[in-house]
Structures are given as C-alpha cells and as structure tokens.
C-alpha cells in the first residue's frame, strides 16, 4: 500500500503559530497517481489511455452508467471528455466542434457534503424531492455555464445570442420566486455586459438560499418558509439544454452531462437522476454517470418505476476488462506504463524490460518446460503438447522451488499485470513504491533503466501482505462492530482457500494443480452470502457466473484476487477449473482452515469440463476457464 509516508516522507513539525506551513513536493515518479482534478487538460490527455476502456460506448448518444471501484479511472475518463481535453486531442476546441462525432461534455462532480446534506432527512418527502432537484439543477446549470464560458472559443457565439440565452434561462424560473436573487445578482454584475458570469452569480445566490433554508429548518424547526426559486426537469433542465442547443455556433451539438461519483448523491437525488434517465431525451442531452456499483442505492424513479438496461441506458464496467480479456488488459497496462515512462523522459521506455523477471528463475522455468515436453512424450502424447506444458510446467516450477527452499519470484511485467487482478491502481501503486525504493537506495531518478527483480519482489510481497493484513483492518474500521465477525470469517475463508490451493499446487500428483476459484453448490445462508459479498465488495474475489451443467441458469463463480498469490505462494498466471464447495464445507472454511483443507483434500479432484476451458491462448498466457 502506498502510504502518505511513502509518498512524501515524514516531516518535522515546526509550525507553532496560526500561520499555515505548506509541504514541498517530492521528485517525479512515473507511476505517481494524481487526482484528475489537479491535472491540466494536456496532462489528462497525455496520461489517459483510451484503448480498452469502452470509451466508444461512453461516447455514444445514450445515457450511460459507468461502474468502477475507487481509483479505477472513471473520473479520468469523464474529464477526458471535456471540451478542453478534446481540444488538445483535435488541435483546438473549434476543430473538435466541427467533427461529425462532436459532443459537449459538461463535467459535474458530486463531492462529499456538497449535495448529500444531512438536513434533507428533516424535510417531508415531497419537500425533500423539490429542494433536492433544485439543488441538482442549479449545480448542473452552473457547470454548463462554466463550460460555455471557459472551455469554448467565445467567437462561436453570435452577438446578441448570449444575452437572449440569459434572458431565456431567467424566464425558466418563476418570475416572482427568482426576482430577489436576480436583483442581488445585478448588484454585483452587469447582466448585459457579462451574461454568463451573471447567471453563475444567480445560481450561487440560489444555492446559498437553499443552504440557508436547510440550516434554518434544522435549527429553528418547522414552519420555515423557503425563499428561493424551485426548478424541475421539464420546466428547467430540459429547456436549459434546449436553450444551449440554440447557439448557432454549437451546431446542435449533443450535450453530455458527466456526473462523476454519483454514489455521493443521496437516495432521493439518485431517484431524481433515474427519472431524468427514464425520460430518454438523449436527442437533447445524455447523462454519463460514474459510480461505485454498491453505492448506487436505487434504480427507482420518482413515480415508482425502474430504469432498466439496455432500454433506458447502456453500461460500462471499468473493472471488467481483466476477466473479459486478459490479453487486452495486459496490452492496456503496457500502453499506460510506456506512456508514463515516455512522459517522465525515462531512458528506458519499454514496459517489459523496465520491469524484468528474475533471470535465474526464467532459466529454471525454461528447463522445466523442456522436461515437461519430454514427459508429454513419455505419457503417450495426451492432447496437444503445448496445452500439456502449459498445464503442468508452472506447477512443477513451484514444486521444485519448494524442494530447493527457494522463494518464488513474482518479478516481471507479466507477473505484475496478473497480480493486479484487473485494477490498474494495483499495478501502479506497487510500481510507484518500487521506483521510490530505487531512489531511496541512491539511484538518480532520471537514470533508472529498470527496477531490479529483488526490489520488485520485496515490494510485491509486502503489497500482498498488506492486502491480507493491513487492508483487513481498514475494512474493519469502515464497519460497525456488529459486522466484525463477518470480517474475521472472510479472513479465515481466504486463509482456508489459500492453504488448499497451495497444497494442490505443490502436490506433484495433483492433476489440476493451478486451481484458483470456487463455486458453491446449494443454498448458502444469508450470513454466508454476506461474507461472500463482502469479499466481492472489497475485491478479494472477482465474481463471474457460469452456466450450470444441468442447464437452467447461471451460478456464481468466485475467483481469488491474484494479489494474494505471493502471500499464499500461488501461481498468478492462470488457473484451471474450479473447486466446488457445499454450504457445509464453506461453513467449515469460514471457521477452521486446517479442518477445511483436510476435508477438501480427501475429496476427489474435479477435472475441468471441456466447455469450461475454451481458452488456452498461448504459453504462459491467459488460460483462464472464464465464461
């Protein structure tokens, strides 16, 4: 884990007054992860890798929900769609606006405490909806105006157009309700000479009125009159978008509202957004909503309906690439790494040689592969030689290393890609620490040509250990004490599975040594389901589904996060088949790893079904039996 200490180093506290003292930034590390909001448009364009992101789906003229864990690159993708970034890509915003597939991305972040205010719970449901919707509307309106003001070339507006637009926007509000805010805005800004700025001031005043109302309602209690305007979808948001489209220079450009971190909206606000989606006004504007899956609390609309995919929206799963196509994921990481090495002007800009594997172990592995190929002949040439070698050589390597009491090396670009299990942040963070370790050792950052395997191993073992130990503590901290038993059970389950898979991998007689996933046959209790879900939520398991042999539906398939491999001495490069657990055995796994391993090893090995193993892509490559 990259701790703040690792990033900036510790610092003596010298400040003894009410004056603030700033910290100083450290050297540039090519693997540093910065918040997209702190990056310039050029930096965003430079760092963002559009390949394998399903960006084309996001760019379609449809409402889209973008699911992804924290740090998966959702915000980066949305910021990349803003006009100022598209301008960098296409040689100017004006040129981008001339393209056939042009769009105007309006970035609207939902930050903690900005919209999800505690005071909403004090309002009756109807008032809460009205106030919530107005708050959302004026925030979006502010971002839209800001985009028009700051991101578009001002010469696209015909004289008089902006003033007409401003008057139209004011007309969207009830005249009496908006009068005092309009008057106040006019006291600080002249409408005629600075229409867009004036509108933003108007929205700021309305925003303040909402806050004052919420405060007074909380502290004075009931019977507090709201003195601002209100606005809805059909009477404000939609006409506002139409009014924007009336700018001739925009040539009826589609407007994309890029709602980032919608998990930070309260349930009523999410209901309002769902209602907007259900209206399907994509011809006028589209919502591109990024959120963490488990924190999007509802798909209901205001009238009790539900939004459904694909009728109402498309969806993109930012985390799903690894399980869908591991070779694409590897390609994507390679592009990211090489872009970063290039931007940091590193002497070596090639991912594989910057992160080399352990040479001795590579040599040993090549020997093992040759021996396994010979063994294939002795065994009567069952199946294809390549598949045989792929299945048994890697396991044999682990067995030999154990016999020789040598630690397995997880160094090397491909190993690190696998260990990141589909989360780019889990690739970049250990690399950040590896680079940092080289610098701490005395290497000049600009002269680093590669990260020695020993340093890679040191960091990656620690990174794996943190996942099992430190992050578990973090999960505990995020939960109330009544949930802590489940946290302990999840930890025990991982221990049980880790030990079982280790035993299989290191048993020379094992025919399916590289198991790495499991299914549960039969109904599990609600408590067990909670533990499994907690494992998925915190990415200890990747959840897939598979067709049951009996037909008639799909069942859940839990794949261990490969970041755990170094801790349990497992093979991160692939797995074959899956073990099936009964609810009874799962219950043992949640309580007692020794007993679980003993019981499970007594059961016969399950060979993978042919339909489950369609992919043996290439040697040492992506042999997952994932459907």
């Amino acid at each position: 884990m990259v701790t703040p200490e690792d990033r900036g180093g510790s610092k003596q506290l010298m400040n003894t007054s009410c004056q603030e003292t700033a910290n100083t930034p450290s050297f540039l590390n090519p693997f540093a992860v910065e918040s997209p909001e702190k990056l310039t448009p050029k930096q965003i364009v430079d760092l963002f890798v559009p390949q394998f992101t399903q960006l084309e789906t996001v760019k379609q003229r449809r409402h889209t929900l973008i699911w992804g864990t924290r740090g998966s690159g959702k915000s980066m993708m949305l910021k990349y769609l803003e006009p100022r970034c598209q301008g960098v890509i296409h040689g100017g915003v004006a040129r981008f606006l001339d393209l056939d597939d042009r769009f105007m991305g309006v970035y609207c972040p939902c930050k903690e405490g900005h919209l999800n205010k505690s005071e909403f719970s004090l309002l009756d449901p109807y008032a809460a909806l009205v106030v919530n919707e107005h708050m959302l509307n004026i925030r979006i309106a502010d971002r839209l105006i800001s985009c028009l003001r700051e991101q578009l070339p001002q010469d696209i507006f015909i004289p008089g157009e902006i003033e007409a637009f401003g008057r139209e926007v004011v007309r969207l509000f009830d005249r009496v309700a908006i009068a005092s805010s309009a008057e106040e805005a006019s006291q600080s800004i002249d409408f005629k000479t600075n229409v867009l700025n004036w509108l933003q001031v108007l929205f700021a005043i309305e925003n303040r009125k909402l806050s004052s109302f919420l405060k007074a309602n909380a502290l004075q209690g009931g019977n507090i009159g709201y003195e601002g305007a209100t606005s809805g979808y059909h009477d404000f948001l939609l006409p506002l978008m139409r009014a924007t489209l009336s700018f001739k220079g925009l040539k009826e450009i589609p407007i994309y509202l890029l709602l980032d971190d919608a998990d930070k909206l309260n349930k009523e606000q999410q209901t309002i957004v769902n209602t907007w989606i259900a209206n399907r006004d994509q011809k006028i504007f589209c919502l591109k909503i990024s959120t963490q899956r488990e924190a999007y609390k509802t798909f209901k609309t205001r009238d009790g309906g539900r939004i459904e995919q694909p009728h109402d929206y498309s969806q993109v799963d930012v985390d799903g690439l690894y399980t869908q196509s591991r070779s694409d994921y590897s390609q994507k990481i390679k592009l990211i790494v090489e872009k970063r090495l290039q931007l940091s002007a590193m002497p070596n800009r090639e991912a594989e040689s910057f992160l080399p594997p352990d040479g001795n172990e590579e040599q040993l592995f090549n020997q093992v592969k040759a021996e396994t190929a010979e063994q294939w002949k002795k065994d009567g040439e069952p199946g294809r030689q390549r598949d045989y070698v792929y299945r048994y050589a890697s396991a044999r390597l682990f067995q030999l290393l154990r016999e020789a009491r040598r630690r397995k090396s997880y160094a090397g670009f491909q190993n690190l890609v696998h260990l990141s299990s589909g989360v780019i942040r889990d690739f970049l963070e250990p690399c950040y620490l590896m680079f940092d370790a080289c610098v701490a050792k005395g290497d000049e950052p600009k002269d680093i040509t590669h990260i020695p395997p020993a340093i890679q191993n040191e960091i990656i073992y620690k990174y794996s250990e943190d996942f099992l130990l430190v992050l578990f503590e973090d999960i505990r901290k995020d939960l109330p004490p009544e949930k802590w038993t489940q946290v302990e059970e999840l930890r025990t389950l991982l221990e049980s599975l880790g030990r079982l898979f280790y035993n299989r991998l290191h048993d020379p007689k094992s025919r399916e040594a590289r198991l790495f996933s499991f299914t549960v046959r039969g109904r599990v209790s609600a408590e067990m389901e909670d533990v499994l879900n907690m494992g998925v939520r915190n990415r200890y398991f990747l959840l897939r589904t598979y067709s049951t042999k009996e037909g008639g539906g799909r069942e859940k398939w839990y794949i261990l996060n490969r970041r755990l491999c170094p801790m349990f001495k497992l093979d991160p490069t692939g797995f074959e088949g899956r073990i099936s657990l009964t609810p009874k055995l799962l219950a043992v796994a949640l309580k007692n790893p020794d007993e679980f391993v003993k019981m499970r090893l007594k059961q016969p090995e399950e060979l993978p079904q042919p339909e489950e193993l369609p992919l043996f892509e290439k040697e040492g490559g992506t042999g997952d039996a994932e459907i």
Partner: protein
Amino acid sequence: MTPKFSSEEIDMMGGIKSIHPQSPDDIILLCASYEPRSLATTQALAPSYRAKRGLIYVNREFLSGPAGPMVNRNLEILQGTLTNKCDLVEIIQGSWLDPKIQLTELRHYLQKTGDTASSKRRTTIDITTFNREALIVAVALLLENSSPGDIRAVYVSPQDHGAWLSRGFRLVRNVMGFAGTQQPSKNTILAVLSGFEPERTAKIIEEHEPSKVLLGLGDPPTDTKFLERNRLEQHLVLARQEVADFCFPADSINDCAHCLREVLFPYIGKSNVIIAPMSTKLSTLAALLVAYENPDIQLTYCVPGEYNIEDYSRGSKAFFLESLSTYETECKGE
C-alpha cells in the same frame, strides 16, 4: 486563554456558582456518558448553585449494551444531584447514530417558545462528555435563543486518555445545521482540528477529497503531554503533499476561534471551506462559533465505529470555564 482551575482551586472558590451570582441559571445542560468525568462538574457545583431547568443529555444507544451499566449509573447520579439544584429536571434521549433524533430531541428541549421566547436566557453547559456532533448541535440551538455571552461552557480535562479513543468509522456526514454552501466553481479547503484519532482524520480527508488540507495541531493543549501525542498521531496525515499545518489553542474556545478566523480568512469567499473539529471540546466549540458566523462553512463529522467505553479517559485534572464570544462581541470588546 480560558480560566483554568484545579479541583482544589474550585473548592477554594466555593465551587462553580451560577453565571449571575444573584439569580439562578435558566438551564444547566449536562451529558451522562460512560466516562467518570460525566460527574465532575456537578460534583464541583457550589452548594448555592441553582438553575431553573436541569437537562441531562444521553445517547439512547448507550443506555443498553456494554456502556449501559456505567451510563445508567451516571445518569442516576446526575439526576439526583440536579434534583436538589433545579426546579425541573428532564432527560433528553438523543442518539449518536441517528442525526435526526439527535437534533430533534435537543431542539425539543432547547427551543424557546411562547412567552419565554423574548426573554434573556443563561445557560451553563458541561461540554466534557458530549460526543462532538451532539455538542455542536446543542450549543447551536442555544445560540439561536441566547446571546453567546450568556452561554458558559465548563470543560473538565482528564488526567490521561486511554490507548485509543474510538475505532473504525461508519460514515462521514455534515453536522445538522452546518451543511454550509458549496459553490461548484470553487475549490475545497478542509481544516482539521486534529486530536488522537488519525484514522478518522484520514477518512475525512479521503471522503472530501479537498484541494488542500489545513491540519491543525492543538498547541497549547489542555495538558502539555497531549501535544506530543497529537503530533505523533497526525504524523502520517502530515506527510501528504497537499497538507499544510498550523497550530491552534486547544485549551480555549475564544482564542481558538480567533486563531481559526485568522487561518481561514484567506479562503472565506474564495473557496468552499469545511472544518472537521476532532480535538478538544473547547476547540470544537470554537469551530462552531466560526461556522455560525460564516454560514457558508461546513462542519463535518466522522461517525466512529465504536468508542473505547472501558477506558476512554482517566481521572479529572483541570476545570476550564469560559463564556462564548462571537467575532462581533470580540470586536466590541476591543
């Protein structure tokens, strides 16, 4: 600096008297918690002390479970003591988990209505063992109906704190009534008055994702040995690049408020300002005063997973007595 007294000095003074020696306080507001310090203020009241109403706040979740025996015992003792000193004693059953219950219950008892609405109201509040969120709400409700100078806070510092104060976190939320105003075109500044709970500090920073963090360290602290612990505990937070640090007087409401005004002055109006009070109760009230004067400021709170009920604090060391003072009254005083 807040007047600070040892138990012996309080005894020599004849105990804590009413705000106006000739007339009873209108309200004395206490909190019954699992800490032995809950009782320290009532034990230090002068024999002559009188109040018209005695209000005891208790978080309903603590009336049962592991904290139950201690809280019920302390509640009973407080009730007994106040019965002899007040015309009326009432219990406010709030909640540390549900902010709506917390606010509405406090509001029910602290709001002035009818013929008392226009009269001057004097309140003594023992701020020692309130959870910070309830404390802010309670004093904000008092401020709605009283002038700051008529609210006297009593704080009892401990001999020592336990190895940990709270563990885990449930969620981050704004304190009711202090959502502030956030303008989307402005960046966000988070000022943290840090204490001994670095994980909660880190959680608040993570949730708000501010452009800049101003990390405050309590110096002077209520006790010199607390400063070193404060520094050590916040060490990791300080190592972040986007963090600047400052010191605030943790031992005085009004001095701390003065300091906060100074630190935040460059940002008010230019940035969205959020304050996370996580240090002493005295500095928590300072944050309240500054946010009360500047309605755009948000007060944020990280609800912990659990409190160290067994060993939150040990003993009572010093008494701090201070009447509130807003910026306006501070200026008038000058």
